């Protein structure tokens, strides 16, 4: 859906930024999930440097927004929580990247 050039010279209002993604810890979680098919709770905890409770809280928020899908599986008879981005989550992350690149790219003009 193409939109005409805004009157402000091409700087898309930062108010349009997706605030669910814009939180640093959730952004980090989504970056890792974007680069893989799925990852488990322990990996995200290690990679993003979050505590168990902290990660759980952020994942709940992302799941409420429909950006991630959380599946409880059994691996070697042990419970395992696998997390993956939904199609909506991937699109939202791509849109967020483009918005930030456009907004920050115009800072120097």
């Amino acid at each position, binding site marked *: 859906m193409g939109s005409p050039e805004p009157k402000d010279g091409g700087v898309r209002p930062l108010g349009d930024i997706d605030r669910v993604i814009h939180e640093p810890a959730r952004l980090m979680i989504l970056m890792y999930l974007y680069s893989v098919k799925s990852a488990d709770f322990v*990996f995200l905890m290690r990679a993003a440097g979050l505590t168990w409770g902290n990660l759980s809280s952020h994942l709940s928020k992302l799941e409420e927004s429909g950006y991630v899908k959380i599946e409880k599986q059994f691996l070697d008879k042990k419970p395992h929580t696998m997390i993956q981005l939904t199609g909506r989550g991937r699109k939202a992350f791509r849109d967020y990247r483009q918005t930030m690149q456009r907004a920050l790219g115009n800072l120097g003009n």
Partner: protein
Amino acid sequence: MSQQITLGKVRRRTLRLINFEDGLWDILLGSVFLMLSIYPVTRRLLGPAFNLLLFVAVLAILIAGQLHARRVFSAPRTGVVKSRRTPARTVTLAINAVLVIATVGLVITTLLFPQAISGSRWGALPGWVSDMGVDIIVMLVLIGFFSLMAYVFGIPRLYLYGWLVGVGNLASTALHLYPGYTFNLPLAIAAGTIVVIGVALFIRFLHKYPIPTEEA
């Protein structure tokens, strides 16, 4: 966060954390080159057919052992990741497989036939070059291959491994020029060093990444 974070760095960090942090890959690599260093000796003792069977069997055991150790020790500590199948990844895996097979094949060839693949073709060159020409190329291939891996994956110790096995292999085949020399000691020392580094990394990994427990 003091350094710039990009998706490329995230992918590399994922790869490092899952595949190279625990030192198991280093132990496997060093063990394979250790086997290659004694390949000519066991070949003389067992004959070519049984020696090849033994090599393949031990290799299968080493790989199975590494996968099992990863499941038991590493996965509970660093987690589980399923990679996305993209065309680029498939091509990368295929190229890696070809390079690994070619590298192992070259090393075996130079260790088993140090004289047969040099000589008359290189007649116009000085004697030591015509004797060692292919071995020098193998050394450069090994150094280049490991250096490329080090750069792509962001793992500096792979630069060292390239030089260790490259120079180790060259020194081993050079010593074969002396009659009576049978054991590839330089390559064995290089391989042993890699195994020791791998063991040290594994011990550090166990301490650095305790098995996480769910907070109350």
